[in-house]
């Protein structure tokens, strides 16, 4: 299989503009005859469904939550990047492009990244027009703040709830279209498979999570905006319901899965406090603007109250190791350094499983410099959240933080049009692999989700519809019936095993294994061990799973079982990809490949490509395909933030 990126050539500044002109359009009067399915209602899916509806297409939108407003984009805190250069501090579209390619450790496609940077400015305009209450200065103009991996202030924010406000903007636009009758909303519906007819994506099979009804929905094109797969680790900052099922099912139907080992571990999360823990909570990276990260210099001080440790006994290790970026180094570096410190026995907080996994994030100096009120204005809700979870007051005692899985850069492979290797199947937002390479910079996920949803997919989906015969298959089509039957059969299988273990118990076991062997640092022996262990867990899952109740009712155990089954397959592919990529880059750190200072050591000669994996059948090894990456504009160098 040859992977065609379909990216335009020529000057990068005009690629998207030229491509837009070359794409085919659908006449306004014909649009309502085209049906498009959008799965997921986060920033990418919500924005897309609203935009396509407004343009006159017949849209069906799906989400597993009870309302589209609850998609996990809502939890993004810090902000959204845009190259507006309102601060007159040297920002430009080109600089945002440059920072993103470099931040991604040279594993993203230049054309896509440039387009993202270019569209960033339109996103802010769009959101302000929708009434998103971004932070403003006393002049009434928009405010900005700085973020990791950049030396300019280009991040727009709405207190610590930027994702919420952006999502509500998209949600409101979506509900407006529901009211107008252009979008039909299916809440509490979970996509359980993709329907491919004559080589084209033509629909999905869903389960109504209240009645249990299994149904086929058919359309001319299908778009998955279903988020990332971070919950493969069980403990992550993702919402509990986030899962890989939609993309994994599409993968099994022919969509290649790209760079699954590129996962992001976010440096500023609240440390694990016990075995009962169900998820991890992120504290926005924006906190690193004013908070200083440190550990005690001496291991005997780790149990001392932090305020009793004098300045000279503290190691502000990020400021020491990276004087120019200091506490604002990119996420992968900040995470790995925290792990190093804890591995050296300098971690703080409660010991869980014999190790203290935490470092301090201290606001003492910020409170002294800015005053408590200014700090409260910037981070008030985050401090409150921290206090609620830990019972400690961060104005008085330094926060304790530790890295946690947060985002997955890998995802379904897509071309420049965001179309997967299955014609008619498009993928937007975190669900695709496209823009962040091996590491995503802070405040770029919201930017990508909205760029895909508002400004890229509406064009590229239309271009596909304009050139493709409309769907003619209905419920009676043999292929549609076959997919519906296979979904029903799988559900019956979950219910009929009647073993002893809950879906969560398998999920925890898998998550712990993946975190240990394929988390912040990976090595050959560990990955090989994981590749032996995962099939064993999977085998036990299919023999000893217990799901009570029936398929014809709200059954949360059944929902979990399906998701865990897919994580058990994805986890194996992740480890395989991590083993295959014999280099370190971004979030993928192979211990065998590091510089003397312990920084990631890329191997551009042998690994400057996207690894896209093809499903070849159960029990058969995946086949890898390579998309070579070329860097015409930003020349690969070793990233340095020193």
């Amino acid at each position, binding site marked *: 299989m040859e992977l065609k990126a379909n990216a335009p050539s020529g000057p990068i500044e005009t690629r998207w503009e030229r491509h837009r002109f070359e794409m085919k359009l659908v006449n306004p009067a014909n649009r309502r005859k085209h049906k498009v399915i959008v799965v997921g209602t986060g920033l990418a899916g919500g924005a897309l469904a609203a935009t396509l509806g407004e343009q006159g297409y017949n849209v069906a939108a799906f989400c597993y939550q009870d309302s589209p407003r609850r998609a996990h984009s809502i*939890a993004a805190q810090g902000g959204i990047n845009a190259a*507006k250069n309102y601060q007159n501090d040297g920002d430009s579209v080109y600089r945002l492009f440059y920072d993103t390619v470099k931040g991604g450790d040279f594993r993203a496609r230049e054309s896509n990244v440039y387009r993202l940077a270019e569209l960033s400015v339109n996103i802010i305009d769009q959101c302000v027009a929708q009434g998103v209450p*971004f932070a*403003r200065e006393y002049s009434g103009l928009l405010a900005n703040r700085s973020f990791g991996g950049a030396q300019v202030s280009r991040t727009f924010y709405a207190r610590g709830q930027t994702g919420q*406000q952006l999502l509500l903007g998209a949600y409101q636009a979506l509900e407006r279209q529901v009211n107008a009758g252009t979008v039909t909303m299916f*809440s509490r519906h979970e996509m359980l498979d993709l329907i491919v007819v004559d080589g084209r994506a033509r629909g999905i099979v869903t389960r109504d999570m209240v009645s249990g009804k299994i149904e086929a929905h058919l359309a001319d094109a299908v778009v998955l905006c279903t988020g990332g797969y971070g919950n493969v680790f069980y403990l992550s900052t993702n919402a509990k319901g986030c899962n890989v099922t939609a993309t994994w099912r599409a993968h099994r139907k022919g969509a290649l899965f790209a760079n699954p080992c590129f996962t992001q571990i976010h440096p500023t999360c609240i440390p694990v406090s016990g075995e009962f823990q169900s998820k991890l909570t992120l504290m926005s990276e924006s906190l690193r603007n004013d908070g200083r990260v440190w550990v005690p210099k001496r291991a005997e001080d780790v149990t001392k109250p932090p305020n009793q440790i004098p300045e000279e006994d503290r190691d502000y290790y990020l400021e020491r190791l990276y004087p120019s970026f200091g506490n604002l180094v990119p996420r992968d570096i900040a995470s790995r350094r925290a792990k190093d410190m804890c591995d050296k026995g300098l971690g703080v907080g409660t010991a869980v499983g014999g190790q203290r996994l935490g470092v301090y994030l201290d606001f003492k100096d910020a409170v002294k410099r800015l005053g408590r009120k200014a700090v409260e204005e910037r981070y008030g809700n985050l401090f409150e*959240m921290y206090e*609620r*979870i830990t019972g400690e007051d961060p104005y008085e005692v330094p926060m304790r933080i530790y890295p946690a899985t947060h985002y997955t850069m890998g995802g379904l492979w897509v071309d420049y049009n965001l179309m997967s290797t299955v014609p008619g199947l498009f993928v937007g937002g975190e669900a695709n692999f496209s823009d962040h390479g091996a590491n995503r910079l802070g405040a770029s996920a919201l930017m990508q989700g909205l760029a895909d949803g508002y400004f890229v997919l509406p064009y590229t989906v239309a271009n596909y519809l304009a050139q493709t015969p409309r769907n003619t298959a209905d419920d009676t089509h043999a292929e549609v019936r076959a997919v519906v039957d296979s979904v029903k059969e799988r559900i019956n299988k979950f219910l009929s095993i009647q073993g002893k273990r809950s879906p*969560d118990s398998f999920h925890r076991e898998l998550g712990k294994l993946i975190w240990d062997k394929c988390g912040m640092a990976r090595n050959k022996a560990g990955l090989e061990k994981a590749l032996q262990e995962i099939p064993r867990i999977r085998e036990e899952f299919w023999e000893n799973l217990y799901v009570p109740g029936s398929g014809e009712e709200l059954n949360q155990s059944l929902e979990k079982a399906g998701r865990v089954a897919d994580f058990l397959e994805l986890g194996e592919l992740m480890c395989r990809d991590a083993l295959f990529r014999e280099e370190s880059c971004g979030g993928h750190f192979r211990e065998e490949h590091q510089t003397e200072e312990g920084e990631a050591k890329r191997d551009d000669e042998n690994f400057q490509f996207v690894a896209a994996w093809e499903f070849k059948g159960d029990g058969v090894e995946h086949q890898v395909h390579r998309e070579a990456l070329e860097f015409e504009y930003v020349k690969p160098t070793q990233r340095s933030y020193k």
Partner: protein
Amino acid sequence: MEKSLNLVLHVWRQKNRDAKGQFVRYEAKNISEHASLLEMLDQVNEGLLEKGEEPIAFDHDCREGICGACGMIVNGHAHGPRKATTVCQLHMREFQDGEEIWIEPWRAAAFPVVRDLVVDRGSLDRIVQAGGFISTRTGSAPEANSLPVAKEKSDRAFDAAACIGCGACVAACPNAAAMLFTAAKVAHLNLLPQGEPERDTRVRNMVAQMDAEGFGHCTNHYECMEACPKHISVEFIAQLNREFMSATARARQELRPRRK
């Protein structure tokens, strides 16, 4: 030293919308004070699964207090005893060892029970559909800084926009009114210059939908504000009333035949 608690729970179990529900007693043993209330229920559910019983169904997702999915009445309080806190952020250190905890779903005619603690809040989405938006077309937005908005006004709009749509205000209200929810959305959009052109139709349509969904009327108990996990103020209800009255008055004037 970490404390652990033993608790007695009385949880509302109801098979589906039409079934008759009842409280069922469970024991929750050895619960860490650092666990959230939902993590406590997770542990109870794992225990039920071990015994081959059906777990307690409840809505939840982000577990960070922002998605608005979770919500239940705990000991008579929407989202439990701690102020400005969703139930996913309510930690067991708020309870005493040996305490009895009563847990039930939101109770409102406009929120039918789906199962156990899960309710259908589609009525809130329909209120937004009626007018909780600014009709701006993708791509037609003017340059963002061409319309300055006074910081005070923008901050005030934000205070209202912080609503997470959990429905606690409805559950806490003796009349099961959705006034705080509706008021927050109307205030967010009507305070901003971008929301000005649709200000009157927005408030009229949203209030009409709220009534059509079977929510009750506001009789100034202010329980909604007490229960709201995002501190949304009842002052927005006063604003909603003003907006609604003037919008209605303006609409009547327009309808009146002009004298020649």
